[in-house]
């Protein structure tokens, strides 16, 4: 059980780290910059926010399969394969919410910064700082999606005991075997874990509870 919990945290945590590293800058740039095909890009991003996990699982499976283009990496049925699948699912979510938060920052702030002669990079930083509440929401939502995801990790991980079994796939397995009590217990731990992680993220966030950030 402990091994399953740790593997879950490892896989979803890594996926979230990748998603944050890619999604936050991407979302910030999309919220900050105007360009010609922006509408199309945003529509694509919104679509990606709702990607079906089983579809992502299938595509990653075919990519990583020995017969697939990345087959030589030998990653199918390993934790990195699960991280790849989850990162694909979570990155658009983080990017989309970050973008919405950055867009929502008062225009005058960025104009004032630009007038003061701040570099675009510095303006981006200021915007992210102003919209950190929204960015944290994006990260929290991303973590929620990653840790509760089952279809994709089942397909690309294979639910191998002691190796790629995570909490959601363990719940599926135990339900399949009719061990409903055990499945429910794992579900309760999953929920508690999610709560603990959210608590930490919120506590780290200054001004979260005053509503004046």
């Amino acid at each position, binding site marked *: 059980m402990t091994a399953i919990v740790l593997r879950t945290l490892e896989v979803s945590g890594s996926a979230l780290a990748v998603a944050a590293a890619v999604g936050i800058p991407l979302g910030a740039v999309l919220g900050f910059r105007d360009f010609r095909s922006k509408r199309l890009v945003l529509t694509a991003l919104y679509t990606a926010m709702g990607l079906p996990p089983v579809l992502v699982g299938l595509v990653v499976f075919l990519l990583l399969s020995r017969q697939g283009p990345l087959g030589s990496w030998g990653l199918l049925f390993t934790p990195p394969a699960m991280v790849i699948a989850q990162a694909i699912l979570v990155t658009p979510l983080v990017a989309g919410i970050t973008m919405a938060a950055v867009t929502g920052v008062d225009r005058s702030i960025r104009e004032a910064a630009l007038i003061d002669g701040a570099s675009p990079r510095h303006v981006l930083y200021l915007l992210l700082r102003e919209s950190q509440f929204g960015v944290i929401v994006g990260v929290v939502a991303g973590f929620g999606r990653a840790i509760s995801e089952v279809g994709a990790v089942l397909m690309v991980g294979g639910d191998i005991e*002691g190796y790629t079994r995570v909490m959601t796939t363990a719940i599926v397995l135990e339900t399949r075997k009719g061990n409903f009590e055990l499945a429910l217990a794992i579900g309760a731990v999953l929920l508690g874990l999610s709560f603990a992680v959210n608590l*930490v993220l919120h506590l780290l966030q200054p001004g979260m509870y005053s509503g004046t950030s």
Partner: protein
Amino acid sequence: MRFSPMARRRYAAAIMPALLALLLGARDFLGGAAPSGCSGAQAHAAGRLLLATTTSLADSGLLDALVPGFTRQTGTRVDVVAVGTGQALAQARRGDADLVLVHAPELEGEFVQAGFGLMRRCIAYSRFALAGPADDPAQVRSAPNAADAFARIARRGAPFVSRADGSGTELKERAVWKLAGVEPRGHHWYFPSGSGMAAALTIADQRQAYVLTDLATYLAMRPRLRLELLYDQEDPTLFNQYAAVAVNPSRFPHVNFAAAAAFVDYLLSPEVQLQIAAFGRDRFQRPIFTPLGGQCIK
């Protein structure tokens, strides 16, 4: 809820290290938990056998009973991916397994003939049985043979759950329907579920339906089922033979053929064959498998 910045930091400081420790410790801990004693990619390189098998061997607990001994002897970790026979063979055809352990002689033959598999060895046989609701509305208890039992279910229109997942069990089921002269698909009483053995049993249990099951999975699940074994006879139709087939390394150079061969040798060793013959005596008060020592009956 309102926290002062200080309190907030204090709480975070209390929870954060615990979570970090969990995350950082994950590697070592999992490494310790894994039989090979090392983590992730290292174990992979040092010797990992990727075994694609039927859900029945995994769900029945037989593999759980046999695999640890092999890992102790050889240091090779066995990663079991439990899918249906059809899916296991498809996975192996893409080179995504080192060894398959399945129960569908025709498919195994095709697999070997197409050059994907080597050394098909029959490990043991068991049989399939028909489980269903205790009141047995279709009267299969008194059926003279399996085909007649299936025909009775069709005549009565009693609910029947099919694996319908390309598994060896489904193939057997189709063969029995054919013998019974019934095409079940499309009938209101026929439920193609697309699920593994344990899941199909759970569905049949909830719907009080009939289901064709391998003996091992049914017995492992019995404490949680209301279904009873209604047709459980020495009927050649329900013969269920398990074979191991190694994936051909000249087709897929990356496969761990040495580990696959070692695992097959291990399964066929006299001690393990005895262990297979005894499997179920303690837990289910009856033996389930008859060892075959590598010789296939068909």
